[in-house]
């Protein structure tokens, strides 16, 4: 299902259809997060990605009126597509080979925090993640909040200035 959505993102001609395929993929990844006991990240994935980001994409598509069918038949650069397919397949082959060769590191357990057991309660994953973020990575957390503020202010400035010059 995830791969169907991912392929849908790159083969659908209509940008809205591509965005909806992206929703399918993001929900599938969220389900895999739940399956791997990352409950908080699954919730964040659904809210931030499938909620906010895709809605933002659809909003921009509708705002700009670019929701027309892209012509995928014509190739802009000659020979680009076979080369792109070849490069992607090579990348996947290299990654899979590395994964299979590196399989034996799974025999050595990590030395960090242990993931919660089932008897720790349903909130154990969230509690552990919060302890990690707010104790070990609290500086990075604050820097991230500054980054978000800068992004919002920069975007507002970007769109306002161009409208002022256009008028």
């Amino acid at each position: 299902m995830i791969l169907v959505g991912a392929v849908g993102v790159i083969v659908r001609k209509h940008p809205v259809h591509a965005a909806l395929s992206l929703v399918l993929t993001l929900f599938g990844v969220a389900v895999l997060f739940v399956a791997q006991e990352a409950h908080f990240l699954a919730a964040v994935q659904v809210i931030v990605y499938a909620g906010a980001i895709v809605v933002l994409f659809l909003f921009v598509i509708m705002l700009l009126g670019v929701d027309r069918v892209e012509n995928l038949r014509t190739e802009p650069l000659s020979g680009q597509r076979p080369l792109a397919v070849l490069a992607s397949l090579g990348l996947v082959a290299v990654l899979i080979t590395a994964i299979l060769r590196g399989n034996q590191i799974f025999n050595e357990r990590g030395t960090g925090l242990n993931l919660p057991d089932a008897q720790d309660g349903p909130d154990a994953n969230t509690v552990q993640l919060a302890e990690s973020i707010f104790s070990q990575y609290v500086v990075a957390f604050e820097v991230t909040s500054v980054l978000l503020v800068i992004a919002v202010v920069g975007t507002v400035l970007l769109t306002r200035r161009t409208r002022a010059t256009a008028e």
Partner: protein
Amino acid sequence: MMALSLVPTASWYLVLSAVLFGIGTLGVLVRRNPLVMFMCIELMLNAVNLSFVALARELGDINGQTIVFFVMVVAAAEVVVGLGIIVSIMRNRSTLTADDLAGLKG
């Protein structure tokens, strides 16, 4: 060399994330619409997140999930800035194709 077993182990998750990353790369290389290219970049980020979570579980380390959290926040900021740039470009142009954006002059 170990073979993949049929139960969903961490290797399956890693292979899935590699394939997702490859599809995202292919999309960025092939598609000409900047919006769809952004979606493919999101796809690649999700693939990396998936591999982080799989390794965090397999190695018993919560810090992988912490990094995934930060990646999500930075991706949200990146999408906001990128879509702002696309909107401001589209105010002056009618078509939206990455090949037309070769010049930086407005």
